[in-house]
């Protein structure tokens, strides 16, 4: 009798744990569901083509225009700039920590990079807006400090901790026989690092870069504070675009979501932007996870 009650209690607890276990799946499903639920009615008001191929984002014009393309372009531009800066710096720092720095310095740097990853983006955006933005404006003789390039620099520093930590992890998984074999054949340390160890860790490094850039493209506060949240599709080349204001997906949502009422087309369009952003980051993450799986397999062989 007692035994049976025990078993019943155990079973109840197990089902509760099961429910908690699958909560992550349920939450991801709910996020998708609510983005679509609030966003999709937009296409009852305007055409899907007007959103996906629209070249203008002008919510207050008559009729209002909710074009995805300028937002997508801006997000692409600032992330591209961030990648140019963050990939060499992030991977280079990982190489330094893993292979070159003295042990104590390496330990300190690892802690420092972790701390750097914890800095709230709103604080980074603040320093960017009041210090970096005027600096770059004067240095490049720009009309405005609120430009894509400032956003790129700041996003790079938000992406670097992710890139460095995961790339360093991937490098640590390379079997040490690779190192021993290469050095035994007469290669210098640097040749070994450059020709053997980094290539062996490449899938993991690619994953690190994808995850870092995934973070950059979804970052909101920094781009709201320094990129001006305005801009059209480029018509004067890439450098011109970098040195002027841009409108990013995250910046548009963040800056405008507080001003809209539930159910109006503008509100729906912001949720559709959220859908697009979510799909982009899911794509980045899936690529990263695939690449990480490949590293683990290499490490085992």
């Amino acid at each position: 009798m007692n035994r049976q009650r025990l078993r019943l209690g155990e079973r109840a607890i197990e089902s509760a744990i099961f429910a908690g276990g699958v909560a992550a799946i349920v939450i991801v499903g709910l996020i998708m569901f609510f983005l679509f639920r609030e966003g999709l009615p937009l296409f009852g008001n305007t055409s899907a083509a007007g959103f996906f191929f629209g070249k203008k984002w002008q919510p207050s014009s008559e009729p209002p225009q909710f074009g995805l393309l300028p937002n997508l372009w801006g997000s692409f531009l600032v992330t591209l700039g961030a990648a140019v800066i963050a990939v060499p710096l992030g991977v280079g720092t990982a190489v330094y920590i893993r292979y070159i720095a003295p042990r104590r310095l390496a330990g300190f740097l690892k802690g420092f990079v972790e701390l750097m990853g914890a800095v709230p983006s709103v604080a980074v955006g603040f320093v960017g807006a009041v210090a970096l933005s005027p600096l770059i404006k004067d240095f490049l003789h720009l009309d405005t400090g609120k430009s894509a390039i400032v956003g790129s620099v700041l996003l790079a520093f938000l992406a670097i901790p992710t890139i460095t930590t995961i790339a360093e992890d991937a490098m640590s998984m390379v079997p040490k026989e690779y190192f021993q074999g290469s050095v035994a054949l007469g290669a210098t340390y640097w040749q070994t690092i450059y020709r053997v160890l980094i290539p062996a860790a490449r899938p993991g490094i690619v994953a690190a870069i994808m995850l870092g850039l995934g973070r950059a493209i979804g970052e909101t506060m920094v781009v709201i504070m320094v990129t001006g949240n305005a801009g059209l599709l480029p018509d004067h080349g890439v450098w011109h675009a970098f040195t002027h204001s841009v409108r990013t997906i995250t910046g548009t949502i963040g800056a405008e979501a507080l001003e809209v009422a539930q159910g109006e087309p503008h509100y729906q369009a912001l949720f559709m932007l959220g859908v697009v952003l979510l799909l982009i980051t899911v794509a980045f993450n899936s690529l990263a996870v695939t690449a990480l799986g490949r590293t683990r397999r290499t490490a085992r062989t």
Partner: protein
Amino acid sequence: MSLVLAHNKRDSRILAQKLAFAAVALIAAAVVIPILGLFGFIAFQGASKVNWDFLTKNPSALDASGGIFPAIIGTAWLIVFTILLAMPLGVIGAVYLTEYGGRSKLVTLVRAAIVNLAGVPSIVHGLFGLGCFVFFVGGSIDRIILRTSKPVWGQPCLLWGACTLAVVILPIVIKSTEEALAAVPKSFREGSQALGATKWETIRRIILPAALPEILTGAVLGIGRATGETAPVMLTCAASFKPTLPQGLGDQAMLLPYHLYFVVTQVPNAKMDTKSAIALVLISFVAASSIVVILLRSKFKKARKW
């Protein structure tokens, strides 16, 4: 002759290595120095302003001078409720993954969901919180239970902010708890079950207590992350200016990160030392929590008896 050649070649290889090492060291410096500059800027500009008055007084409506007391209290409320929501769910999720799930397809799916949840941009969390908690759940409470047309729960407030942030930090809590549980040796489980304890008894009496310090480390990690998040709470909880303290979960509240954003972007005559001081308080708190995590981790690693 050939010996000399070999010698020269060796020299050039060593030289190449020296140059390459120097270049890589410079890259590391190029990452560290700007960040030190960022910390230095905030500390230098803000330190003189951070004093007892600043921490305990209300801000002025005109230029945000005065203090940040309501923002500190608001953030404290929000963090407490976020942790209360996220910890049980996260620990249960991790217990499922490590103790019950095994290698089933469902576990693979749960893990994929956690990775994707961790990658969801914070502003998307904000939209989700707004659409799901504020408008759907809160709006339904107003419409069906309270039968009012004036929003009571159907507007941003601490409860919805905490729900949203709990979703944001859930992957962090699950991951750190999972690592903590995995670090408990298998022999603990076998020993307990050999003595006749059921699986749940083993988990509750043996595994969770053994993993508790590291689970708490994960909680601190979650607190650090939740404190600095701006985008999710901007849409679900934060008040831009509200000098009275929150009275309950249904109140909007001022929050540190949103206060910084608001003052920097919307209060043109705010002084630099005010803005920097807000940033300094925010960063100090987040940095403190992340240093605590690093210290706790190394302490537990050393103290582990198995």
